[in-house]
C-alpha cells in the first residue's frame, strides 16, 4: 500500500506546471519547474514567524535577502522573500512543523559557500539560516582525540581557533573556513585539504542532531567512538545536502595538534612525476604526510598574476625570487607544481622530510622546490593554494568541475579539455591529488553558452567512461542533480528515491514534500 502512495506522489510531481521562472543559470541544461503544490507565503505566515522568532529572526530586507538568495559564485539566484534565523533547535523544529502544515517549501542554509547552487533557493522557498546557532556546547579532551560538540552554525575557522588554544585541530580544513559552517560541512560531507590524513567526515563525525521535515527532532548526538546499535542513520544525513533534514548539532572527533608541521612547495617537470612523487611520499613518509595538493602552471600563473597575493609587488617578488634562484633555466610555464604538508614531532621529522625531499631532487622526480622555514612562510604557501577559487572568480567567468578520477588518467582530461576548448578559454587544474580529486576550472572572460556546449556533456561523459565521480566533494545541488546518472547506476538512484519517499511517507502529518530542490526531486525530473 505504501508503494502505491509513493507512486501516486511520483506522478503528481512529474506532471509539473507550465511556467518556468526566470533564472541565472550558467551551467544547468535541464529546466526546473516550481511545484504548484507548494504554497506562497502570506502575511499570516510572516506574523506567525515573528511571534515565534522575534523581530530579529525574520528578515525581509531586500539587501539581506539578495545576499541570501545568491550563491558565492554569483551563478545561482533564487527569489525568496523570507529569511528565517532560528536561535536553537526548538525554533527550527517549530519552523519546519509550521512550513510542513502550510506546505511551504524551505531551503536550509549555512555559510552559503557551496559551489553547486545547493545553498540558495531555486524559487521562492523560505530560507532557514542556522547562522545564529553558533554555540560550542562542550569539549572533552580526556581521550587522545578530543570530542567537540557544537551547534551547526559555528564557523569552521572559529572552531579551529577554539581548538588551537586547547591543543587540538579540526579533522577538516578548507579554503572557505572563514565563512563555512560546520552544519553545512557535515551536510555536504565536505572533503578539504586534510582528508588524506584524517579521512572523511563519515569517519570523524560521532553524532548529530537533525530536524526532519515535519519538525521531529532526531537526537543522534552521541559522543561515543563505538556504537553498533542498529542502523547508523547519521551517515545518511552526512552528505545528503539537507534533503533529509536540517542538521542542528554536530559531535566531532578532533585530532591532537602535533608540534612539528612543515610544508614544501615543489615543482615537477610533468604530471607523471607528480604521480610518482605521491606514491613515493606515501611509501616513505606515510605517517607524516598530511596533505598533498597539486596545481598546474596555468593555475600558478593565474594566482600570481591577479593582485591576490597582496600587493602586486609582493606577488611578483614571490615568483621572481624563485625565478631568480634556480628557476631561470626551467620554463615555469611547463611545470605542474605541488604542495606537501607534513606533520610529525621533533627534529627526526625534519631530518626525514629533508632527506626525502633532497633525494627526490637528486633522482629528478622534483625539478625544484622550497621548504618553509617558519609559520608565516607555511601560511603563504597555503594562501596560494587556498586562494585559487577566489583568484578564478576575480579573473572573470568560471565553469567549475569537481571530479574524482583514477590517478593516471587525471591530467589526460585536462589536456583533452584544452584541445576541446581551444583559445576561447583557459583551462586551469588543481586539486587534492592525494585523494584522486581534480578541480577542473575553465576560466573565460564572460559566461558563454558556446563554451559551455564544448564542456558539457564532454566532461561528464569522460568522467563516466573512466568510472569517476562527477562530484567528488562539492555535492550535487542544483548544478549536478540531473547528472547523477553519470556516476550512479539507475538501480542505485531508484533506491535513493524510494528511500527518500519512505522517510517522508512514514513521518506523521507530512502533507507534502519540503525542500524544493532536494537532490532526489531533481533526479526524478531528469
Amino acid at each position, binding site marked *: 500500500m505504501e508503494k502505491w502512495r509513493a507512486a501516486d506522489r511520483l506522478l503528481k510531481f512529474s506532471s509539473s506546471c507550465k511556467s518556468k521562472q526566470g533564472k541565472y543559470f550558467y551551467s544547468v541544461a535541464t529546466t526546473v519547474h516550481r511545484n504548484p503544490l507548494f504554497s506562497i507565503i502570506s502575511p499570516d505566515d510572516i506574523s506567525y514567524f515573528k511571534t515565534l522568532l522575534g523581530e530579529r529572526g525574520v528578515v525581509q530586507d531586500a539587501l539581506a535577502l539578495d545576499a541570501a538568495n545568491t550563491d558565492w559564485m554569483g551563478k545561482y539566484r533564487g527569489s525568496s522573500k523570507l529569511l528565517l534565523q532560528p536561535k536553537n533547535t526548538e525554533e527550527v523544529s517549530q519552523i519546519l512543523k509550521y512550513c510542513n502544515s502550510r506546505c511551504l517549501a524551505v531551503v536550509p542554509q549555512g555559510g552559503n559557500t557551496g559551489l553547486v547552487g545547493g545553498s540558495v533557493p531555486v524559487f521562492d522557498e523560505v530560507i532557514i539560516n542556522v547562522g545564529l546557532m553558533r554555540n560550542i556546547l562542550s569539549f572533552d579532551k580526556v581521550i587522545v582525540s578530543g570530542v567537540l560538540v557544537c551547534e551547526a552554525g559555528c564557523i569552521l575557522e572559529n572552531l579551529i581557533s577554539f581548538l588551537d588554544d586547547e591543543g587540538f585541530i579540526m579533522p577538516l580544513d578548507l579554503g572557505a573556513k572563514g565563512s563555512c559552517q560546520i552544519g553545512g560541512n557535515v551536510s555536504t560531507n565536505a572533503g578539504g585539504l586534510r582528508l588524506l590524513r584524517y579521512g572523511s567526515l563519515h569517519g570523524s563525525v560521532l553524532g548529530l542532531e537533525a530536524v526532519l521535515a515535519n519538525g521531529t527532532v532526531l537526537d543522534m548526538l552521541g559522543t561515543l567512538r563505538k556504537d553498533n546499535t542498529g542502523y547508523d542513520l547519521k551517515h545518511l544525513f552526512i552528505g545528503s545536502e539537507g534533503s533529509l533534514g536540517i542538521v542542528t548539532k554536530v559531535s566531532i572527533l578532533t585530532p591532537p595538534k602535533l608540534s*612539528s*608541521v612543515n610544508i614544501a612547495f615543489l615543482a615537477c617537470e610533468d604530471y607523471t612525476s607528480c604521480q610518482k612523487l605521491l606514491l613515493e611520499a606515501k611509501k616513505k613518509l606515510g605517517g607524516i604526510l598530511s596533505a598533498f595538493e597539486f596545481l598546474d602552471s596555468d593555475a600558478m600563473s593565474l594566482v600570481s598574476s591577479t593582485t591576490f597575493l597582496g600587493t602586486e609587488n609582493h606577488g611578483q617578488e614571490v615568483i621572481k*625570487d*624563485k625565478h631568480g*634562484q634556480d628557476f631561470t633555466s626551467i620554463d615555469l610555464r611547463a611545470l605542474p607544481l605541488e604542495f606537501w604538508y607534513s606533520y610529525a614531532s621533533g627534529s627526526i621529522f625534519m631530518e626525514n622530510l629533508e632527506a626525502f625531499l633532497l633525494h627526490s631532487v637528486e633522482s629528478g622526480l622534483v625539478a625544484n622546490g*622550497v*621548504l618553509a622555514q*617558519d*609559520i608565516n612562510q607555511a601560511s603563504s604557501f597555503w594562501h596560494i593554494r587556498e586562494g585559487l577559487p577566489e583568484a578564478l572568480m576575480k579573473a572573470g567567468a568560471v565553469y567549475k568541475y569537481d571530479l574524482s578520477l583514477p590517478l593516471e588518467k587525471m591530467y589526460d582530461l585536462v589536456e583533452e579539455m584544452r584541445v576541446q576548448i581551444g583559445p576561447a578559454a583557459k583551462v586551469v587544474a588543481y586539486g587534492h591529488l592525494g585523494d584522486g580529486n581534480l578541480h577542473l576550472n575553465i576560466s573565460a572572460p564572460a559566461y558563454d553558452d558556446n563554451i559551455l556546449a564544448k564542456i558539457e556533456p564532454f566532461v561528464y561523459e569522460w568522467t563516466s567512461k573512466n568510472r569517476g565521480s562527477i562530484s567528488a566533494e562539492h555535492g550535487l545541488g542544483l548544478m549536478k542533480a540531473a547528472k547523477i546518472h553519470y556516476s550512479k547506476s539507475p538501480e542505485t538512484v531508484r533506491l535513493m528515491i524510494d528511500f527518500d519517499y519512505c522517510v517522508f511517507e512514514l513521518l506523521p502529518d507530512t502533507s507534502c514534500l519540503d525542500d524544493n530542490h532536494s537532490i532526489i526531486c531533481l533526479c526524478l525530473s531528469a
Partner: protein
Amino acid sequence: MKIMVAIKRVIDYAVKIRVKPDKSGVETNNVKMSMNPFCEIALEEALRIKESGLASEVIAVSMGPTQVVDTIRTGLAMGADRAIHVDYPGTLYPLSVAKILKALVEIEKPGLIFLGKQAIDDDCNQTGQMIAGLLKWPQGTFASKVVLDKEKQTAVVDREVDGGLETLCLDLPAVITADLRLNQPRYATLPNIMKAKSKVIKKLTPEDLKVEIKSDIEVVKVTEPPKRKAGVLVSSVDELIDKLKNEARVV
C-alpha cells in the same frame, strides 16, 4: 668586502605566546622556534649586496645553545657562505651580544654588519646601536633602503623614523639594522638546502673570544597584558548616547 649578519633564534612570530605559570618567563617548551623576522630581512639584504658584486662573502653569526644551529642552517640555506655559532647555554642580553660581536669583528674584519632592528622576543632594539658604539662605527638603524657605493666606500641608508624617512650617508665600515620594508626575504630552495649541508659552521665560546658574560639586568616578572573587556551591543542611537554620557563619560 665581507658582510657579517647577526641572526637570532626566537619563538616563531605566528605562535600564540603563553606566560609560564610561575611568571618567570614565556613558555618555550615544545614551541616552534624560527629566525627572527628582522634578521631574515637583514640577511636577505646582505645576500642581495653580495649578488650585486659589492661583497665577497656573507657570514651568518648566531649565539645561544645548540639548538641555535637550526636557525643557522636556515641562514645557510638562504645563501650565507659560512657561519659562526657562539655556544652559550644561558640568556644573552644585548650588551653581551654586542661585546661578542665586537670580538668577532676583530677576527673577521667585515666591512659591514647587518642586524635586524630588534628581536621579537625582547623588543630591545639595542644590539645594533651598542655594537656601533663599541666599535665606534657609524650606524644606520631602521633601514628601509640601502645603497652601497664601492668607490666612495659609503652606504646611503633611508631610515624609517617617526616623522617619515631620513636619509643618511655612512662611511664604511658601518652597522645597519633592518626594518620591515627593506626587502622581502627569499625562501630556502631545496638545491640551496642541499648546498648548505656542506657549508662550515665554526663553533666558538665566549671564553675563546675572551668575553666575560655578566649581566646587569635581571628579569623579575613576566605577566600577560590585561584582558580586553568585551564590548556591549546597543540597540538604538539613544541608548548609545546614554551610555557614552553616563557610563563612559566621554560626551
